[in-house]
């Protein structure tokens, strides 16, 4: 990790994080990267997603698999971690003591849970009048669908995105990313930052109700306008665009190599024609309407040109000519991309269970107070001593009593069911992965200079 003496922008903000899975932890990860002190609270009998999956470093579950889960690592860097059982009254009491010294509580339980614990917003205000609480239920704190189960993977269907995604003439196509989760998470961060800002001015906290189903609809402004104005529902058009023509994904030299491009106006069309040595086409399909009608023919001409070059060559050539074009990068391509490297986008994180590995870094760059990955994802209950001892003033004996009564613990108190290591060759056989790279560690070490 880069050492820097520049201050972190959210220094001094303390967050109690009860969230689990992806959306909530995503929200608090961003706060942690910006320097907030995020205390992740895990239940001893139900830790966050430390179990299962097939993301162990180098496919080895190790002796403490609950500390070696890559999904957990990526979602929970820049945070501290304690174990605390809110099912027990004394656990809830300790939680209230933490609320008294915190700025923000964030949770994604189903809506009844926190009030049932006596830890709803109205209860917490009694403990700390200016506390901010951000709740992330799936569909909202009340209403006919309030108890529905959502995973990020179904929200894109609920919010209209899946309906407009698909090959021409094909069925709706599921997004490869459960986009509802990180988007819900980002709006969670936004809610926290807005509430902190308001409190600075007014002195009062508030409760934010963030239904994940309310967030992805933000992307649907244009189709919704078309419905209101024209009673028209958008068709599935594959990789084409309703306005720009041509637009598409074209095959390049090599195995499964592609480039994407768009032509937004007649100038870009002329530039594209010149770049591919077909200047005469600029007049032949001079308007977007003509290009839309001849899209199949134009696709064929473009593909004839791209298939003889690498995707990087095509991208460079067309961008030099001012045409929007992008190489279709795999996750591996991303990790070794020269532009992202120059940007310092991936940051190396040295987790005690994995050694140094690059992770996606900051979502934006700040010129004066840059964020950074402040620490690797915490081990289970790693900060019990700091939080119970230093922050709450409990003695060692006091903490031991809590452990004896299972109000806290130092290891998960449930079989974490880590599952077997992944069969990578089988994944390749069934097509989940395009490549199993035996030299990945060496390549990463070399590229990121982590020897």
């Amino acid at each position, binding site marked *: 990790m880069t050492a820097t003496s520049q201050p972190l922008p959210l220094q001094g903000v303390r967050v109690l994080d009860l969230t689990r899975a992806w959306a909530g932890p995503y929200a608090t990860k961003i706060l942690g990267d910006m320097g907030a002190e995020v205390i992740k609270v895990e239940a001893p009998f139900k830790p966050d997603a430390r179990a299962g999956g097939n993301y162990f470093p180098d496919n080895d579950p190790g002796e403490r698999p609950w500390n070696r889960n890559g999904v957990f690592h990526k979602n929970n860097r820049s945070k501290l971690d304690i174990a605390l059982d809110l099912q027990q009254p004394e656990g809830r009491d300790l939680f209230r003591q933490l609320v008294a010294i915190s700025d923000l509580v964030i949770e994604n339980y189903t809506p009844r849970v926190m009030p049932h614990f006596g830890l709803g917003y109205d209860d917490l205000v009694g403990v700390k009048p200016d506390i901010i609480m951000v709740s992330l239920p799936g569909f909202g704190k009340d209403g006919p669908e309030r108890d529905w189960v959502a995973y990020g993977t179904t929200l894109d269907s609920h919010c209209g995105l899946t309906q407009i995604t698909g090959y021409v003439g094909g069925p709706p196509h599921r997004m490869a990313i459960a986009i509802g989760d990180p988007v819900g998470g980002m709006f969670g961060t936004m809610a926290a930052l807005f509430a902190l800002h308001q409190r600075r001015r007014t002195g009062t906290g508030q409760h934010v109700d963030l239904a994940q189903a*309310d967030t992805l*609809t933000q992307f649907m402004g244009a189709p919704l306008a078309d419905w209101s104005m024209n009673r028209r529902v958008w068709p599935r058009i594959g990789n084409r665009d309703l306005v720009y023509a041509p637009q598409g994904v074209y095959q390049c030299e090599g195995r499964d190599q592609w480039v994407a491009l768009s032509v937004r106006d007649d100038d870009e069309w002329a530039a594209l024609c010149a770049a591919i040595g077909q200047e005469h086409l600029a007049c032949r399909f001079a308007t977007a309407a003509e290009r839309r009608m001849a899209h199949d023919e134009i696709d064929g001409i473009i593909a004839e040109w791209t298939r003889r070059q690498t995707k990087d060559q095509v991208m460079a050539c067309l961008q030099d000519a001012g045409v929007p074009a992008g190489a279709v990068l795999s996750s591996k391509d991303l990790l070794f991309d020269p532009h992202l490297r120059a940007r310092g986008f991936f940051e190396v994180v040295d987790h005690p269970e994995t050694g140094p590995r690059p992770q996606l870094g900051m979502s934006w760059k700040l010129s004066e107070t840059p964020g950074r990955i402040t620490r690797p994802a915490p081990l289970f209950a790693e900060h019990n001593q700091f939080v119970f001892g230093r922050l709450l003033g409990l003695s060692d004996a006091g903490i031991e009593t809590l452990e004896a009564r299972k109000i806290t613990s130092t290891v998960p108190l449930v079989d974490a069911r880590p599952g077997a290591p992944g069969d990578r060759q089988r994944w390749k056989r069934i097509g989940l992965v395009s490549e199993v790279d035996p030299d990945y560690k060496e390549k990463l070490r070399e590229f990121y200079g982590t020897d």
Partner: protein
Amino acid sequence: MEQALSDLVVLDLGEGIAAPYCARLLGAYGADVIKVEPPGRGDSARAHGPFPGDEPHPEMSGLYLYLNTNKRGVALDISTGTGRDLLLELVRRADVVVEGHPPGYLDSLGLGYTDLAAVNPRIVLSSITGFGQTGPHAGYADTEIVTAATSGQLYIQGDRGREPLKTGGTPFAYTAGIHAVLGTMTAVWARDATGRGQHVDVSAQESAAHFLQQSTTWYTYLGVVQTRIGSRMPFGHPFTILPCKDGYIAATVLPQWIDTIGLLIEQPDLANDPRFLTPQDCIENADDMDELMMRWTMRLTRDEIVERAQALRMAFDHVYTTEEMLEDPQYRHRGHFVNVEHPTVGPIAFPGAPFIMSDSPVVLTRAPRLGEHTDSVLAGRLGLGDGDIARLRDQGVIA
């Protein structure tokens, strides 16, 4: 009305989607947003549509009307010396400037970060571009599909054995705008401690790449490269879209629920079926699983399927069209979609608040006509008289 960001003044120099969307979110939660557009053509989104009856008109573009709610509109040519000076006067009295021009463009006009900070050291400048302000690809042109391609998202989506498939609409342009809000608010917060603003650099490529957490971890931990497997996901099956009697449903069944799925689709032996013992088994035999599921789904409507599945606590949901979303009972209960009236096109149902703050109501007001508030902003904010304003109009600096 007191709202979260009532104390912030924002100048929106953006065009298209990302930067205007960032400013729109700030405005929805109370910021005073002044949109600054070039006289004549205005924001490029005015030419994008959709339009009523598909007849282009700069005051009737659905995309523009959606992205520019809660803003006042000024038409000002910032490429002129006078226009530049006027903008700097507005910056003097502002907290945030949001823009999406190619890196270096504002600098070339004498309106780069250092120029703005010289006039107002507390200004936060948020710049959103395709590839960021720095690096070998800085300044490259970007559209939604280019962002999808270069962020890793496109490669892993679509059917095996054919070209990858982009997600419909423009989710990654919006994502860049969301990140800009977060970066802006972080900078505003930090300003209290440092006394100074700063430059926020948002790259659409990097914003979208953040969705690739699982894929990149698969490589850094296991050396495997995730690829596309059709309308499915690598965590197990069914995580997919299935047809039913009256449309499509989305099903997400975590591996530990294989018994319950058998119960749901009236196949009690499913849990013991050797084809479906582990998540990888389910993926490998996904076609068989789909066939069993469809025997059940094709007999039922979406409502019936979702109701039965949700009763068993399983994450099934409708594949909604835009029209159907507006009819969804939960969205109606929450008043999520809001009708915004327009003198030009009548009411449009827009999504309302992405989250509900107990102390900061969201009220959407319609997008401004080009130059609708030029006079009132110049008079009200900068104290210009009628004579000055008329002169500027004659010179073509404002409209």
